[in-house]
């Protein structure tokens, strides 16, 4: 099984986080990340946003360390902040300002030097396609346009670590494709952490995957490694509609589709679910679903790339 082998820019060393005195919601044992796009996947409540907030210096781990190029970011957050771009899942803007003014303001907040700021703001506006409306007040922007402003602000300081949390929520299909392209362009010599629960977003752009479930990292490897782990475990099975409920109960079903009078299922498991089931090539989504099912049942063998 292939493991990601990257220079150690970001290291999570036995990190855990809990809200108040509650149980730990994130126990990320060990993780080492280098430049490139890393997709952070997991079901709702898996602890993705908590991990993102810790990486964005908005929350401190209860135990363990997060090292950015050797510096513990809980002790010296400004070392990371100077080179961090963060797009939160939910954020607001100042409606009285134009996009250009808002970005200029945030550039000043980030401590960028005055002379180069205007040029950098223009570059970022161009990257997200907002040049033509840059002087309009943000009060009149649509949700998608505001999201693009959010992306632009994350790029202002030309960050080495770009943390984007559910970035495509609220974008239409064309904007989503545009954003994926932008991420690919940006990847180069920086580490992009893309948190999402939309597998296709990751499939299109991420070179590495980290999958969380119930606060634990259950996979750390390449998308291909995840697919390879599911190879031989995906089956296409056509059944009568009356059997659908029973099949869903008995097996892990990742897709179901009506085909004439019958229903075709994509079933995940070590053995064929029944007569007529044929082996299928698993997609990344199948592999992800299979992994989560196996992680939820501890008796099931896990892929080697699990951290």
């Amino acid at each position, binding site marked *: 099984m292939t493991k990601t082998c990257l220079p150690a820019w970001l290291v999570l060393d036995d990190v855990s986080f809990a809200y108040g005195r509650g149980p730990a919601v994130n126990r990320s044992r060990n993780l080492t990340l280098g430049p490139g796009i890393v997709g952070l996947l997991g079901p709702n409540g898996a602890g993705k946003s908590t991990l993102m907030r810790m990486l964005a210096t908005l929350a401190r781990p209860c135990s363990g360390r997060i090292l950015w190029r050797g510096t513990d970011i809980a002790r010296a957050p400004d070392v990371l902040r100077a080179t961090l771009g963060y797009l*939160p899942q939910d954020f607001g*803007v100042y*409606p009285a300002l134009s996009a250009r003014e808002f970005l200029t303001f945030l550039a000043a*907040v980030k*401590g960028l030097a005055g002379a180069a700021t205007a040029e950098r703001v223009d570059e970022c506006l161009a990257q997200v396609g907002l040049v033509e409306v840059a002087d309009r007040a943000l009060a009149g922007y649509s949700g998608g346009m505001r999201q693009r402003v959010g992306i632009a602000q994350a790029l202002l300081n030309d960050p080495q670590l770009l943390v984007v949390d559910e970035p495509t929520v609220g974008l239409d299909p064309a904007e989503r494709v545009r954003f994926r392209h932008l991420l690919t362009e940006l990847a180069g010599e920086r580490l992009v952490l893309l948190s999402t629960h939309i597998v296709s977003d990751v499939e299109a752009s991420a070179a590495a995957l980290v999958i969380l479930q119930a606060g634990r990292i259950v996979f750390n490897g390449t998308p291909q490694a995840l697919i390879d782990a599911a190879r031989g475990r995906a089956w296409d099975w056509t059944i009568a509609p009356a059997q659908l409920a029973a099949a869903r109960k008995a097996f892990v079903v990742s897709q179901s589709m009506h085909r004439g009078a019958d229903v075709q299922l994509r079933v995940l498991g070590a053995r064929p679910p029944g007569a007529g089931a044929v082996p299928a090539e698993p997609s990344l989504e199948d592999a992800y679903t299979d992994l989560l099912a196996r992680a939820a049942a501890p008796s099931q063998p896990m892929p080697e790339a699990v951290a």
Partner: protein
Amino acid sequence: MSATLPTGLAPASPAPRAAARGLAHAGRIAVALLVADLRQRTRSLRFWGVALAISIAAWWCLPPVNASYMIVAIGDHHRGFYSSAWVGMVLAMMSLLWSLIGFYLVRGTVQRDFDTRVWQLLGTTSMRRSAYLLAKWASHLAVMGGLVGATLAVGLVAQWVRAEDRHVDLWELVKPSLFITLPTLSVSAAFAIWFDVIPLLRRTAGNIAFFVVWVTLLSTSAVGSGHDKQAHVADAAPVLEQQPWRSDLAAMQTMQWSLEHQIARQIPDRTLRDGFCVGCGSITAPPARFLWTTWEVAPAVLWGRMLWLAGALAGVLLAVPLLDWAAARAAVPATSDGARTPRPLRWLQAVLRPLQGTSRGVLVAAEVFLVLRMRPLWWWAAWLPLWGVQLFGPRHAVALAMLGGWMLLIDAFSRTGLRDHEHRTVELVATAPRAQRRLLAARATMLVGLAWVAIAPGMLHEAFAHPALAASACVMAASLALWGLAAATLTRSSRPFELVFLIVAYATSQGLPWLDASARGHAVTLAHLAGIALAAVILAASLRADPRGMR
């Protein structure tokens, strides 16, 4: 075959049964809303902070016999022995004050449902709008009632500790709060509903407007509470029937009447003629005490008090038709600034351009734009007369015009420290290095600058003739600006600063020197300098505080 049931056992016709079911359903919804609302409120630190402050205030209202002040007194220095009845009466007399504080504490829950989009979940159910608003009103009343309950508990402790009359009579303790305080608070609770429903009154403008309403109510109560010349000859029992059933909102007149008629035989007529005072302050003679073991009150008076409660209830129901309209208005803007179109203010851009060469200047300029761009036309127009008076008016008018200038900036003072929370930009700015320090410096600079610009013509007016007064005004302006920022940082709310500022401004307009730039003497200036130092300490401490794990 059919059977006939006795008349009393006949099943209700379908229509009344459906109506009863509907009413029960609405009742269940109202109770669920009330419980959820109370849970949400009582689980905040703010609620318990206010409860503690009010409890301390209640203790302070019942000073020991050797204290040099009184809060409620007849004439100059007469008060009742601390029986349950008198303790209850004193606390009930503070109802107007509780109603002021209570309004600022409870208001905003309807708006919170709009802002958090909980309304989208509630509004699409079969919930009756009247049940929703009545539940909110009941919740307001329950919160304020809880605070009054806390004061009564403190009163009970005070009665025991002061040991003037340790006989506890719970009914006499609670009776004045039930019939005087509760109706007063119910009206405040109804105002809180209306001030959430009407978009214009949802924010600082509403906080100012309610203070004006409250001062008006206070003055009408005070005007009506004159001395009854017949009181000294009155025998309580027969004249009880003559007790007027009508009362002002805070029942000052009712209490005045009761005091005069019940204690006429115990204290001199001269004292009675001086009337009674609430919030009296220092006394010139040792306290003289009279017996007050019960509050004698005619049933008609109690029904009169209940009219206020009914009026409040009716007021809430009158707001029901506006609720959906208000929710729709609240849903339009993406932020709390509303859908108002920002003004470009090109002249201001030109004025501030020299600042924009440095990152600090960019921040200050952006802060100025954020404060000024959403202002309506009337706000800009209001500066003309204010600055005109500051330039050419007599000294006292100049001071009032300066106060007016600061009043126009009250929301800037009180809300700037909350901007990132209100606009949900905390995460954008908090992930930048040393951003909190940079922003705080920029915001303090901007606010102090605006506070000075607001009184610039007045300072110019005074600068040559009375430079000390101009300097004093400068200090006051800086103190106001920094306290606005500090209070918002400390309380995460604009209301405490707005309430205190309104009280201080009102007191200044009534002759106290607290914000009077024309007042001579250094005491006020020194107090403001101390205030600036304290605000600076709070702001510096806020940089060290790390409530969300941020540094």
